[in-house]
């Protein structure tokens, strides 16, 4: 037998061996590590070169100042020879406002601009609830930019002053305590509806009061009859308010205190303004509905389980366009003739339900990923069902589901372009078709699509980057 080994000294840790570094080493390791890799590298470089040679001149020859496509072509031919191709960005210069605002009256553009800026303010407590530094990073440039844009849009002076003070105030609050902006978040939907569509302030105010009724009924009854029944009672009370009483309230309040701004019809909405109205409202409403549907699907109460499964499977099984047609045509047939139901509102409702079903399935995946022990520990501590869901289960399930949820959101946002099928002016098909129908720009092809695509990309890329930030922030499991 060999001598027994006994260590007399423990080894100290050493630094790892120096890695071969430098650009040559990197190229060797990654680009030409074998013959096959070398060939693939060469082919790839060639493909990139071909693409750049195709696209670059077209981009470089771009013309910004021209009155029509024909003029564009003349200028390019003059400067770069008769065979040269080139982008005609002049169309964007001439028609950008339709891509952004649709046919919204130009003298009222400040209204959607303020709403767009406030959207970020309203999002801050949700996105950066405990991170005032990021709130500053977003809001400071936003406020400055918004003020500039408001000046450029010819905003009336009083509105400009109010908007400036309001935004600066929000910035001041948000950079101290992001959650202090929560009232802005809660009021934002009502304010925006009033701002965008205009009309009497009392219509929106009474709608808001319906939620106050809901909340009050819930608070008064939840101790006695439980969360679910109290919520139902609140919803019924609010529905009675909205459907029966609110109409009279609006009329009488308007008679006593007339306060209204110019109203704008839904058919004036278009472009990215429309995409954001539909996208943002659907995204923010579909997440809570999706959570409830996912919980309903897990429920052991047969009625709730059945309704949730039925809803989810039905909505996922039907194409969105079918549902949009339903929204635009069938609902109108079935509702009583005097009920006016705005087309955008109908589309928002259906897109919301559609993405809620998808979110429900994504969140169900997150719930399934949680070990049973988490539920048991919550139960064993005496937390009731809703407490356990809110404090233990959902924070973890949603964290796991972030990539899937963001996926659904990005999909939803891009799907807002499908509303062109029911006659709304989405930026892609609706507005672009209008622009291309103009005799001056007939035949233009790439430029509007590139412009619209770039804006969609910015919005979707923003969402995806935020999701990554959130995943990093919530990573506490140290795996």
């Amino acid at each position, binding site marked *: 037998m060999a001598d027994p080994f006994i260590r007399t000294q423990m080894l100290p840790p050493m630094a790892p061996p120096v890695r071969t570094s430098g650009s040559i080493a990197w190229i060797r390791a990654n680009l030409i590590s074998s013959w096959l890799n070398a060939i693939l590298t060469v082919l790839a470089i060639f493909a990139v070169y071909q693409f750049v040679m195709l696209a670059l001149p077209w981009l470089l020859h771009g013309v910004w100042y021209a009155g029509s496509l024909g003029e564009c072509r003349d200028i390019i031919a003059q400067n770069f020879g008769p065979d040269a191709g080139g982008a005609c960005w002049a169309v964007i210069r001439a028609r950008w406002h339709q891509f952004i605002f649709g046919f919204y009256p130009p003298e009222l553009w400040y209204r959607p601009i303020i709403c767009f800026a406030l959207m970020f303010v309203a999002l801050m407590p949700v996105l950066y609830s405990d991170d005032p530094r990021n709130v500053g990073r977003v809001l400071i440039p936003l406020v400055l930019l918004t003020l500039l844009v408001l000046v450029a849009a010819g905003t009336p002076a009083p509105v400009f002053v109010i908007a400036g003070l309001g935004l600066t105030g929000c910035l001041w609050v948000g950079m101290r305590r992001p959650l202090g902006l929560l009232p802005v978040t809660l009021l934002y939907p009502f304010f925006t509806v009033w701002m965008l569509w205009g009309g009497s302030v009392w219509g929106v105010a009474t709608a808001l009061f319906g939620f106050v009724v809901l909340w009050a009924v819930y608070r008064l009854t939840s101790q006695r009859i439980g969360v679910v029944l109290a919520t139902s009672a609140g919803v019924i009370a609010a529905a009675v308010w909205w459907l029966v009483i609110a109409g009279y309230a609006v009329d009488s309040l308007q008679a006593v205190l007339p306060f209204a701004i110019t109203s704008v019809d839904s058919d004036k909405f278009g472009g990215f303004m429309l995409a954001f109205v539909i996208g943002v409202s659907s995204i923010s409403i579909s997440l809570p509905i999706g959570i409830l549907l996912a919980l309903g699907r897990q429920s052991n109460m047969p009625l709730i389980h059945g309704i949730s499964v039925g809803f989810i499977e039905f909505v996922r099984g039907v194409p969105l366009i079918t549902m949009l047609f339903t929204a635009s045509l069938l609902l109108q047939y079935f509702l009583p003739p005097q009920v006016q139901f705005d087309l955008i509102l109908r589309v928002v409702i259906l897109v919301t339900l559609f993405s809620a079903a998808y979110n429900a399935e994504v969140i169900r995946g997150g719930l399934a990923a949680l070990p049973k022990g988490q539920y048991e520990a919550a139960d064993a501590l005496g937390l009731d069902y809703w407490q356990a869901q809110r404090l233990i289960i959902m*924070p973890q399930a949603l964290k796991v589901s972030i990539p899937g949820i963001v996926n659904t959101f990005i999909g939803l946002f891009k799907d807002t372009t499908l509303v062109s099928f029911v006659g709304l002016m989405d930026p892609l098909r609706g507005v672009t078709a209008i622009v291309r129908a103009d005799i001056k720009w007939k035949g233009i092809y790439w430029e509007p699509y590139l412009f619209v695509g770039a804006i969609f990309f910015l919005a979707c890329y923003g969402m995806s980057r935020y999701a990554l930030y959130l995943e990093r922030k919530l990573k506490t499991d140290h795996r």
Partner: protein
Amino acid sequence: MANAAAQNAAMEVSDEVAVQITGMNKWFGTFHVLRDIDITVQKGERIVICGPSGSGKSTLIRCINRLEEHQQGKIVVDGTELTNDLKNIDKVRSEVGMVFQHFNLFPHLTIMENLTLAPIWVRKVPRREAEETAMYFLHKVKIPEQAHKYPGQLSGGQQQRVAIARSLCMKPRIMLFDEPTSALDPEMIKEVLDTMIELAQDGMTMLCVTHEMGFAQAVANRVIFMDQGQIVEQNEPKEFFNNPKSDRTKLFLSQILGH
């Protein structure tokens, strides 16, 4: 542990009944997992439940806080009978602490948040007070310095001690332990057992499912041996280990103590 054994006699058992189980039966589907269980636990008792795997011992203590539902018989915990009434169940659960084999700490919350969550939301204790209680129990389980870390940063033994502290923060009258050391490395078992022994010396009513026979001898005043969903033998630890009555118990003891 010899020291603890000496103190064992000093630990008082009162006449008050903490848990009363009578004629309890439970099935998983068609499988009869618990058969005609009768147990009375006095306040201050330290009961160790052992038996081969699949004998129903975990299921038994999980019935006591209604993580499992029994189908026949009666379970009364601290004067409250467990029925389908959710209010009663939540009341019992807030009085009964439970420690799991896999700790089941909440990984998205810090240790402090793990400890204060239930007192704040269930007992409606003010946050400051809950945090003071939490620090007190973290000192007791000897890891106050970990308060602001996440569970994933702690060793298994530390996590299990946090789990014990989390239960204690609810000021329970009864503690249930479901194989608290089975998922731990040998070096960490001792630190958890020491915590449990201290708890026993403080007079806590405890029901432990465990295979730590040293622990049973040191602090238990009664050992219950289960097999095939039934109580086969119960006795005080000295008698149980030195003079087992049934053949099944003898076989079990020879297998776990035999090497």
